[in-house]
């Protein structure tokens, strides 16, 4: 396993300069997720209108993988429908768990996280944002 595959330029970039960071002032959905094992903490706030994500922000603290994954995710999901997100999340989990060698192009920048598959201890970090997003969508506010 090479660290190069994990700490890619894109990851470090999103980590050091996260996109969509903060809280939406009146979100329609919100959830907070933890990784007990390493202390990652991510809050996701959403504005969903007619089943479409019109706005999304994240805040929290954690390692480069969890934060970069959240930052990238917010970029990707904006404008997508709730159903599309379900599919996307599934593709993302498959990729980082190494179940899928050729990640779907819908994943966009998230393919930068493909290297996580070689670092099983970091899978939880990569998926935290996505799980928290799915939780938020479940919780009608």
């Amino acid at each position, binding site marked *: *396993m*090479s*660290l190069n595959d*994990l700490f890619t330029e894109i990851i*470090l970039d999103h980590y050091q300069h996260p996109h969509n960071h903060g809280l939406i002032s009146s979100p329609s959905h919100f959830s907070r997720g933890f990784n007990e094992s390493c202390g*990652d*903490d991510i809050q996701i706030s959403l504005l969903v209108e007619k089943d479409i994500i019109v706005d999304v922000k994240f805040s929290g603290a954690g*390692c*480069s993988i969890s934060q970069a994954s959240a930052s990238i995710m917010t970029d990707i999901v904006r404008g997508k429908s709730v159903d599309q997100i379900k599919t996307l999340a599934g593709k993302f989990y498959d990729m980082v768990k190494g179940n899928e060698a050729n990640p779907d192009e819908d994943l966009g920048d998230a393919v930068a996280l493909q290297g996580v598959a070689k*670092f099983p201890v970091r899978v939880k970090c990569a998926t935290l944002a996505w799980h928290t997003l799915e939780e938020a969508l479940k919780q009608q506010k």
Partner: protein
Amino acid sequence: MIRNHIKSDFPIFSYWESRGKPLVYLDSAATTQKPLRVISKVEEYYSQFNANVHRGTYELSQIATDIYEEARSKVARFINGLQPESVIFTRNATESLNLVAYAWGLNNLKEGDEVILSEMEHHSNLVPWHIIARHTGAVLKFIRMNHDYQLDLDSLRQILTAKTKAVSVVHVSNVLGTINPVKEITAIAHDAGAISIVDGAQSAPHIPVDVQDIGCDFYAFSGHKMCGPTGIGGLYGKYDLLEKMEPFLGGGEMINEVFPTTSNYAKPPYKFEAGTPNISGAIGLQAAIEYIEDLGLKNIEEHEVALGDYAAQRLAEVEGIRIFRPHATGTGVISFTIDNVHPHDISTILDAEGIAIRAGHHCAQPLMRKLQVQSTARASFYLYNDRSDVETLARALEKAVAIFSPRKKANVLK
């Protein structure tokens, strides 16, 4: 002095060495590696003497009982307990502390009574008290920690009241390595009429412990953190207190007479050992103690302190590092953070070099908040570590800094 080549006593090091991935194991505060002597003892037990203890009426069971009880005596002598019967075998320090919280706390605390803990406790000495406080209405208070990561005994004196029924503190912090003055704390607690409980999970493996000298009423520890098997730990308790206490778990072994709706109990320690115990675990623990004693706890302590001091000095050279280690009583535990490199990322970069350290809250979230960090990285040394491990660690940390510093990154990644 710890002899050279001590790693060869531990099969796991040769295993990874032979696979071309030498293991630099710096997570002994979480669990230690096991010497061959301990592994073989467990194997011998199962291959020659396995039988249930205490209830048997045949020779094999008598042999098993004798070696199980011999292990208890060994543990008692190891911490200088007055008598073997004051040692209860548990799964781990966590269960030992829960035993005290439930069996003593549930029956001796009432609404408004106070239990004093400290700001540097492990969750194992916090959560059981949360549960018991919820059931009894008791109140929890905290000894403060000062800027050198030491407990402030004045703050203990200030919060002690006539309602304080127990003071329970960690002997050696698993995050900071601070050695707390548990003898003094015990004296203060006793003066106020409170009992004293010591979480010894990080002291029993690393420094000589004398429970009679400390004077505490209870002392908890884990076997797996001192070269012993997983699944075995102990609780030392003053015998007269154990005698007066209600039991914890109910079942076989711990009873005297059982009727359909009532029962009366055996004497300690049996009163607190319900069901079939971890017999092979106890025997493995005895072998672990013998191993440690052969090396000498004073030697182990010196070795670790020297490594800790060296590491503190060597790591201070790493750019952006912040080390959380008391000046007064440093041990072989070093927690640190590095600016702009998250502990979890540090750990992954080190792992790629075969170095095992821990990153996270170390089961001490309130302490993390006090330190104003979300998590730290922690290297913890044990008897089998040496200066070359520190060197490997320091160099890998420099690499971590470089990876996360774009300007340097290109030069370090192969």
